[in-house]
């Protein structure tokens, strides 16, 4: 039997985001789960499942879900795991939660991400040079000897090939950055809410690693974000309207993304859209994983909003900005709102489908597409969410 609409997101918890220094990764995760339970009108005693996507601050020693369980005094969980497939993890956690609930393993699962890589600026630091990206600047052995450091540098190699093969330009990437910023300016919770940006501002921003400027790269944020997944029946008894899980899928293509210039979206979409019984025309809002502007461009191509190689012209005319025909990353995304890995797009879909978007609300948003992307176009998750049960 199809999983369509058998489970739902019943609660959403978002902590303070960004340059927030008064907690740590476990604290942010605990607070996010507490807020999500409250949002759903549930209590700690209702929670019998916990899935955690540990950000960088959790380190490599793992057992993140057990750390969080102990911190929150949770007892008798029937499901508990830490998961990491990068930015695809958030969508995948929701999927595994839905499957476990539907299979009767548990009833109510918190899916949570948190991280706290930012440290308070030291007095000696000049403004704006506190190294927000330092945590992501790791180098690997031989590559470091040649000066290749961090995810930015690896993604830049892939973007360079897209530009070479298809004529994609930095102004195309800039159009995505500007659209995200315009959405963020309508979202009071966005880190860049009060900072408008034009294409000229984008062109004037400093290079990080060509072809990426500063505003091609996502924010780095401290904070936590959780959703509560439960059965559709149970969700209907919760405090807020259910956001039904219509479809879900994953796609992990393997191989070298700089050869294919393609994410796992085609494979993940096939599974998710078949389950949901939808086509692209049914999508009211698209919340797409945006570690970089370039990731959005490729993801739009890979879901079929345009052909491979045509992502640049597709976004160039404001199509994905407020007032455009395809609302994308309506809270400002990770480029301009906050960076909670795949939880950022999941949370914005819930907000839109509940009609809680305020100044950024997309009228009559009933069906949302959510993508997660990890590694260098390496892992992918798709969710199709709806405010309607069918």
């Amino acid at each position: 039997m199809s999983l369509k609409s058998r489970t739902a997101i019943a609660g959403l918890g978002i902590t303070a985001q960004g340059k927030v220094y008064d907690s740590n990764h476990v604290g942010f995760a605990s607070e996010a789960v507490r807020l999500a339970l409250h949002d759903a009108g549930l209590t700690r005693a209702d929670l019998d499942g916990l899935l955690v996507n540990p950000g960088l601050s959790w380190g490599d020693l793992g057992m993140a879900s057990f750390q969080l369980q102990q911190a929150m005094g949770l007892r008798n969980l029937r499901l508990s795991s830490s998961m990491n497939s990068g930015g695809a993890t958030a969508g995948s956690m929701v999927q595994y939660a839905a499957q476990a609930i539907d299979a009767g393993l548990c009833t109510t699962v918190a899916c949570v991400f948190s991280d706290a890589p930012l440290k308070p600026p030291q007095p000696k630091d000049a403004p704006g040079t506190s190294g927000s990206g330092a945590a992501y600047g790791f180098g690997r052995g031989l590559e470091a000897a040649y000066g290749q450091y961090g995810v930015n540098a690896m993604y830049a190699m892939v973007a360079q090939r897209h530009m070479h093969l298809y004529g994609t330009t930095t102004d195309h990437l800039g159009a995505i950055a500007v659209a995200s910023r315009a959405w963020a300016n309508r979202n009071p919770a966005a880190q860049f809410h009060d900072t408008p940006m034009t294409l000229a501002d984008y062109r004037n921003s400093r290079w990080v690693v060509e072809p990426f400027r500063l505003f091609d790269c996502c924010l780095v944020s401290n904070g936590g974000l959780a959703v509560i997944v439960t059965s559709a029946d149970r969700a209907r008894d919760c405090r807020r309207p259910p956001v039904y899980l219509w479809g879900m899928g994953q796609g992990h293509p393997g191989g070298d993304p700089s050869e294919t210039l393609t994410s796992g979206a085609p494979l993940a979409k096939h599974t998710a859209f078949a389950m949901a019984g939808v086509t692209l025309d049914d999508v009211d809002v698209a919340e797409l994983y945006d570690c970089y502007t370039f990731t959005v461009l490729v993801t739009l191509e890979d879901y079929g909003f345009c052909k491979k190689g045509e992502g640049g012209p597709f976004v160039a005319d404001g199509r994905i900005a407020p007032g455009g025909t395809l609302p994308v990353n309506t809270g400002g995304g990770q480029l301009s709102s906050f960076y909670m890995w795949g939880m950022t797009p999941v949370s914005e879909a819930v907000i839109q489908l509940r009609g809680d978007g305020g100044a950024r609300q997309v009228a009559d948003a009933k069906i949302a597409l959510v993508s997660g992307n990890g590694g260098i176009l390496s892992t992918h998750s798709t969710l199709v969410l709806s405010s309607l049960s069918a």
Partner: protein
Amino acid sequence: MSDYRKPIPAITPEMRPFFDGAKRHELRVQRCSACGAHRFPARAICSDCLSTDAHWVTVSGRGEIFSFNVMHQVYHPGFAAEVPYAVVIVRLAEGAKLVSNLVGVPPHEIRIGMPVRVVFEDITDEVTLPKFAPA
């Protein structure tokens, strides 16, 4: 060479044949003994055929620029004087890809598809880094 300030790669057991070759100014990559695919860096198993049999071969050192970036941020003080500098991916004629640097070409004159050949930079008494120059 004692004033070399960039990161010096550790010579791990699985990569020693590469560094031993570089010391003699030979570019060596791993080759699957079953299917013949060239690969780099060293891996325990062939991702094409899953064979665990492999050996090291000296390759032509000829290839082309597959992609590149231009680094503007300093992640290690050894590169502070060089930003902006380019990092390249070279696709060797034999098929394997290497992350490296292109010497003698300003970053903004690098183009995908440029033919290149290997050159060697002796950075310490023990370590030599293969780099590339226009062919």
